[in-house]
């Protein structure tokens, strides 16, 4: 991801005009052709919506740079405003049709997340990382589900649920809460070009946290299923299956990673189509085989980065493909946002956002004491952990498939909380890098080096 070029006021004005024009165009066409039936209309609606999301997301994110908000917020906002609950430029059916892009986006995120995990950096900050992983995740899994159970009156879809079921949903919410945002972290890093302990720690923690989340998600989903589905039982066999699933995923991921290394080394062309093949077809094959495809892709990325010299090539290819896919993914997520439901959920979303951020601050202080971290980590080690993005939304989307009884409302609450985290997280992380004096040090080192 390269730093955005500085844009003048005329460019911003043009972007704003184009954005407004796009909304007007979509609404005008909806008025002209909205009532026409037929498959041809649906095809046109879907294609126009993807194009619109791409353009509106790109323009909105560029405009939000002025107020230093991250791109992701722009993508989400474009989707929310255009979606079926605000302007209705894109309807429910179209939003549902576009959900096919989710697996593609998540596979790319997982692949990139694995490729960002560099063994050398992991070894250097090993003590801090282990301490933070245990403390941050342990504390979050204790405090956030407890808050969820205590504040269940604020969460309408838990009303009428027996307490064990509420506890199960709270644990699932805890897993969502411990996800972080690699894309948001990388976006800030590309803007500020920092270097130092805080930077290394945040990159290592956020990238490795994906692995922790995937493992915890599998464990928690297996564990809570009997509490949510009366017929289901928890047995050791279930954990045996889980172990088989996780080990199998790592094995397939390793194989996939080695295949990718061979491909990048000996062929190296048409990487875009290979990524599409992975995201659209291989994901389904792995899911059909009942393996954990997020872990598979994380492992594959990790193998490519650390057991070959092809890591940067892979990251570069994902970066080129990713932005287009992410815009559609996040804009669709924004359009999915059930605003009427949000009206009733906002107190809960705000509460969970505040508790999650406070937990991260306390966790950072505890970690620093345990690992003997330097002052910048003690003061600001939490700031890069507030952002949430694709993985959280992806997990929430999976919940909808796994637990249809409450999955949709769970997803809406997740999008609301993620929106708040994404709004404030990157701002806090940038502030931390500036205050700790690490901003610009990476660029200076690169300049000096050259």
């Amino acid at each position, binding site marked *: 991801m390269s730093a955005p070029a500085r844009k003048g006021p005329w460019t911003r004005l043009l972007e704003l005009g184009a954005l407004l024009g796009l909304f007007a165009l979509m609404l005008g066409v909806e008025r002209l052709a909205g009532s026409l039936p037929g498959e041809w209309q649906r095809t046109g609606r879907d294609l126009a919506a993807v194009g619109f999301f791409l353009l509106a997301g790109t323009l909105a994110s560029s405009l939000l740079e002025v107020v230093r908000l991250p791109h992701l917020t722009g993508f989400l906002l474009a989707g929310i405003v255009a979606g079926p609950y605000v302007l209705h430029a894109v309807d429910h059916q179209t939003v549902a049709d576009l959900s096919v892009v989710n697996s593609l986006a998540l596979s790319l995120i997982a692949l990139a997340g694995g490729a960002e995990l560099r063994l050398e950096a992991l070894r250097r900050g090993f003590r801090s990382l282990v301490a933070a992983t245990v403390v941050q995740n342990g504390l979050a899994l204790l405090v956030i589900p407890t808050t969820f159970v205590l504040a269940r009156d604020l969460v309408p879809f838990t009303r009428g649920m027996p307490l064990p079921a509420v506890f199960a949903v709270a644990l699932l919410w805890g897993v969502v809460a411990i996800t972080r945002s690699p894309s948001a972290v990388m976006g800030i890093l590309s803007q500020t070009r920092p270097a130092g302990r805080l930077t290394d720690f945040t990159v290592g923690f956020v990238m490795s946290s994906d692995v922790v989340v995937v493992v915890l998600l599998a464990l928690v989903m297996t564990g809570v299923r009997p509490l949510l589905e009366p017929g289901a039982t928890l047995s050791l066999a279930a954990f045996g299956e889980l172990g088989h699933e996780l080990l199998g995923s790592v094995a397939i991921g390793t194989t996939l990673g080695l295949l990718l290394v061979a491909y990048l080394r000996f062929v190296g062309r*048409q990487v875009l189509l290979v990524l599409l*093949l992975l995201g659209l077809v291989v994901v389904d094959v792995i899911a059909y085989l009942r393996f954990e495809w997020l872990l598979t892709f994380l492992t594959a990325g990790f193998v490519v980065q650390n057991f070959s010299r092809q890591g940067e090539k892979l990251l570069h290819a994902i970066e080129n493909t990713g932005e287009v896919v992410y815009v559609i993914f996040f804009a669709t997520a924004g359009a999915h946002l059930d605003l009427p439901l949000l009206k009733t959920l906002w107190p809960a979303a705000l509460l969970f956002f505040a508790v999650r951020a406070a937990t991260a601050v306390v966790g950072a202080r505890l970690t620093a004491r345990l690992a003997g971290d330097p002052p910048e980590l003690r003061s600001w080690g939490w700031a890069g952990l507030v952002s949430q993005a694709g993985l959280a939304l992806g997990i929430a989307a999976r919940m909808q498939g796994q637990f249809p009884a409450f999955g949709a409302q769970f997803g809406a609450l997740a999008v609301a909380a993620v929106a708040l985290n994404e709004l404030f997280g990157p701002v806090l992380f940038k502030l931390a890098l500036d205050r700790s004096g690490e901003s610009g040090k990476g660029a200076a080192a690169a300049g000096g080096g050259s």
Partner: protein
Amino acid sequence: MSTLQSLFVLLLVAYVGGFLMGGRGLRGRGLPSGSEWLLAGLVAGPSALGLVGGAEVARFAPLALLATGWIALLVGLTLGVDGERRVGAGAVALGVIVGLLSLAGVGGAVLLVLERVPAAGALFPDQEQRLALAVCLAAALADTSRHVARWASERLGAGGPLIERVAGITRSDDLVPIAAMSLLMSLDTSRGVMALPGGGLAVGGVLGLVFAGLLGRSLRPVTFWSLLFGFSLLGTGLAQRLDLSVLATGFSLGLFLAIASPLRAQARTLAGGVEGAVILPALFLAGARTDMVSGPALWIVAAALLARLGTALLAAAVVAAVDPVARRGGPGLSLAFFSTGPLGIAIALSVNLRYPGPVGDLVLATTVAAAVAGEFLGPPALRRALRRAGEVPT
């Protein structure tokens, strides 16, 4: 075949296509206009072996639509440009004349057969349907493949004024069929959308200008791709919703981007890099959607193909009469204008999607037949003409 398997096959086709047509050394393998992909689709499709079923072919209709829009966008982006060289005004004028001759010749022949052969006319009793068939067939066959000239340059190593002139003409005649399709579709109100004459060209033009404005003066590839995909998808979707020509919208989008943006050369390079990954799957899909023609409809196919051959000969004669450079190729140059390329197939595919049934099926089948026949007649004729002109290294 499941959706997953179909998707896998299509991505594989795109992958192989990208390899064969990506980067330098374009058309390093295979036939000049990629007709083997048409035949592969035809053989694998429901009309022959049925490896790809009718339901799967129908499921990929949105991708086929998108591909036609994208091919038209690339054509618009490179209209009147051969590589990095701008084609002269003379070649552009000749290209338009060649396109108009073919359009008028084929359209007239089809209408004549429908009028004079009762068995053929009985298939299309409605006058509006006859007009649609004639215009669509004429438009699809009015394209002379630009890939044949590329093939001669890249595979045969041809170079000189004659090949430049042929390339210039084949890169300028696309305006005619696209304008014809734009007019036909924008005036057609059978789907309940009001007539918007030239609407496809207008929508694409506005989008292309906004695209150029947003692109500015410095090109960041990631932003370029977001905008290119975004405008292309939006244009295709809006054209479909307003029942306008997707081809006209894509073409106009590319053309106005090329006119208004100072980054046109970089845009051509970037967009051209994925040409193979789009064109060859589109050809495969077109082949798979093709139904065999039999009975009185063969009269129409034969009339269209003969008219196409006749207008190719006439076009070559006109070009030779006004252009001394073209005369150096001798009479062999005539058949070089018989080749129908991916744009012709894209036009036929868009007709097949817009007019499902007898009109769409007949236009696609005839265009596929013309493309395959042109593949065997056009390139050898061009090679002979270039040898005669001394433009092929011995």
